[in-house]
């Protein structure tokens, strides 16, 4: 007897017992549909959140923060916590002491040129852009405004979508920049036509090095504990007076020796920058570009060509949402990178960059790249942990609801088994006749098992059709709830039917129903044909 013929007989038998088949199918359909919708919903939720993250490039981007040399051995005495503390608190304090010791003693890992070169050589890294922002005075035509000069990755897709006019500067275009539309407005360029006129124009940036102007912060640091005795208004006035004193030093009635002493004192307190000193000359030389045309400029003056104007992003466009890189998205002037700008180091005093924004070529490379960077002693902020957590949580939800649906399927299977046993009793003469005609025990058993398996497959098929039909309506109901909870629109698919999930449900339904038929099949196979035909 061929398996195909047995299958046809099984289908015929199921069809001839419509009511019994319908009852069996009902249980399978309900549980399979529940299982399918569960899988589709959890996959939809997971995919939806991943799509949101993906659309903001966050699963490819990461923030690098200067760290400490890895595997630094912390002496036991440094983490010793005295006193009678509970173990959990002791552990927390030990960890705090360990971090404190590392911060004070371990060698720092900054993003120097060498480190940046190593980072860029890692497989999967698309770009590493040191994060830097310089406050500056911007001048265009006869107008000027204050603003910030920010180094960003021009590969960042979000910048591309914000372009109001012009184009993104090429990576080798070191002088090309993008201008913020509001900064353009403050410089007198308002209409779209005016913005387009900006393309190709030169903008002057006078970088604020901080030490040129006495600042309340520097003064506070210089005054030390005494600063706590002075209120902020007095401190501000005092700061302004000291600034004027530095500027009008030549006008005050002091001897040259006294003037030099005051200048030196202010310089050593970091309140004013050294003037006309040898050090200043050296830094100015470092700050000036190699370009000889810039030699007449002030050391902190730069000139850039405007290649494009960018819109300010709205909250809906993702500013601050799922932003792991910390990359500044608001600036007056966007430049490809400030990596080679000596003013950065002159201002910060660090041997390298403290932070950088990185990007991998593909989402799936993020975890491995992050792992390699952390092994170098750098601290990383990325979506890896969130994505992992998300996958873990949706996995748990799938498992929990899936287990419940499977339980329902098993309960349905008990019902199927029961109905089939009754059916076998009803069909006893039929099996007796079959055996009298030469059917072996195996053939009878296969027939009943196939009836169960077909019931499972048929039930799963109906469940799939119903689930797909119901999904749009269920999606709308769920979307309304999700949007209420999120307080924003949610345009992602809520139910995602995946081929693997469908196959799993079909496999489970067919297996459970086949197992449910095992006992009835065995009973049918073992029937005595003579006794069976008498019933």
């Amino acid at each position, binding site marked *: 007897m061929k398996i195909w013929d047995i299958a046809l007989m099984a289908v015929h038998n199921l069809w001839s017992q419509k009511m019994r088949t319908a009852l069996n199918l009902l249980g399978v359909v309900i549980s399979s549909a529940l299982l399918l919708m569960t899988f589709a919903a959890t996959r939809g939720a997971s995919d939806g959140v991943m799509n949101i993250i993906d659309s903001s490039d966050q699963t490819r981007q990461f923030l690098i923060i200067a760290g400490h040399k890895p595997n630094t051995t912390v002496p036991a005495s440094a983490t010793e916590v005295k006193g009678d503390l509970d173990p959990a608190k002791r552990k927390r304090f030990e960890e705090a002491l360990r971090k404190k010791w590392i911060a004070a003693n371990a060698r720092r890992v900054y993003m120097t040129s060498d480190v940046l070169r190593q980072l860029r050589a890692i497989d999967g890294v698309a770009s590493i852009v040191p994060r830097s922002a310089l406050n500056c005075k911007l001048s265009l035509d006869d107008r000027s405004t204050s603003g910030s000069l920010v180094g960003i990755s021009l590969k960042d897709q979000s910048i591309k979508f914000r372009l109001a006019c012009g184009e993104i500067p090429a990576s080798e275009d070191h002088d090309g920049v993008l201008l913020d539309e509001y900064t353009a407005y403050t410089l007198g360029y308002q209409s779209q036509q005016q913005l387009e006129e900006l393309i190709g124009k030169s903008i002057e940036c006078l970088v604020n090095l901080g030490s040129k102007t006495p600042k309340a912060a520097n003064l506070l640091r210089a005054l030390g504990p005494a600063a706590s005795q002075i209120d902020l208004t007095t401190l501000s006035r005092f700061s302004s007076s000291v600034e004027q004193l530095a500027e009008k030093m030549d006008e005050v009635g002091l001897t040259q020796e006294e003037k030099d002493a005051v200048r030196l004192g202010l310089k050593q307190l970091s309140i004013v920058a050294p003037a006309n000193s040898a050090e200043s000359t050296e830094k100015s030389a470092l700050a000036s570009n190699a370009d000889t045309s810039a030699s007449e400029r002030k050391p902190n003056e730069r000139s850039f060509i405007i290649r494009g104007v960018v819109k300010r992003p709205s909250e809906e466009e993702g500013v601050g949402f799922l932003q792991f890189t910390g990359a500044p998205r608001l600036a007056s002037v966007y430049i490809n990178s400030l990596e080679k700008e000596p003013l950065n180091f002159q201002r910060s005093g660090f041997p390298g960059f403290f932070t950088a924004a990185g990007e991998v070529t593909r989402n799936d490379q993020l975890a491995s790249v992050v792992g390699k960077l952390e092994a170098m002693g750098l601290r990383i902020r990325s979506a890896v942990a969130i994505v992992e957590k998300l996958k873990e949580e949706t996995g748990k939800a799938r498992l929990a609801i899936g287990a419940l649906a499977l339980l329902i399927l098993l309960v349905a299977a008990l019902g199927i088994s029961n109905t089939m046993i009754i059916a076998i009793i009803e069909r006893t003469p*039929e099996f007796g006749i079959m055996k009298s005609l*030469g*059917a072996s025990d195996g*053939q009878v058993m296969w027939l009943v098992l196939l009836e169960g398996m077909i019931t499972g497959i048929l039930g799963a098929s109906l469940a799939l059709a119903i689930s797909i039909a119901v999904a749009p309506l269920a999606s709308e109901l769920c979307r309304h709830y999700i949007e209420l909870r999120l307080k924003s629109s949610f345009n992602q698919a809520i139910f995602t039917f995946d081929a693997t999930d469908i196959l799993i449900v079909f496999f489970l339904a067919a297996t459970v129903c086949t197992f449910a038929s095992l006992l009835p099949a065995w009973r049918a196979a073992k029937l005595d044909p003579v006794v069976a035909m008498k019933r």
Partner: protein
Amino acid sequence: MIHASRLTKIYGDTDNGVKAVDGLNLKIESGQRVALLGRSGSGKTTLMNILAGLDRPTSGEIIAAGKSLFELSPAEIAHYRQTSVGIVFQSFQLIAHRTAIQNVELPLILSGMNAANRKQRVDECLERVAIEHRRHHTPAQMSGGEQQRVAIARAIVSKPPLLLADEPTGNLDSLTADKVTQLMLDVVAENKATLVLITHDQNLAKTCATRTIHMQDGRFISDEIHAEATA
């Protein structure tokens, strides 16, 4: 040829059970038409079931188709029933939800014959028993005579060398019974099959069989061979 020796079948325990068949010895030549006569409870049907391989004797043995029947495995016994025996029952024993075609082709499906050959063989058989007009009807849509014709078609569709008929006309009116009897004898003759007919009807036995065996209380009380059956 069938050769049974010392066949005993006891229902219940060996000491206090009912002896349906009591130490029978029987030899049936190929092509012979044997009628087993006897009153109800004489052991005719039990003997037929043993000959068909549907029931096992308590003791004794049967050599059929060259094999000792009860030394065979269950699968081999099933194969023996499939290929060597055709059975016609008094109550037809057709499967209620299957049509005439589907009932008749069942033995062929079990033997693994392909669909094209099956169809040809079934059509031939239905035509032979003159029931082709009922091919798509279920048993409930047919008369008793028609059902018995379908049962005969099913019994002969595998061309078995042994045809067992248990009161084949018991549920039919006399006119239909005559027609069914004639049909059965014709197909047995065409197939050169051995016929074992179980009946309590002396006339039917005389009409159909070349040998008549009377049974009582599980034993043979007479065994007569006729020169020629009247049919």
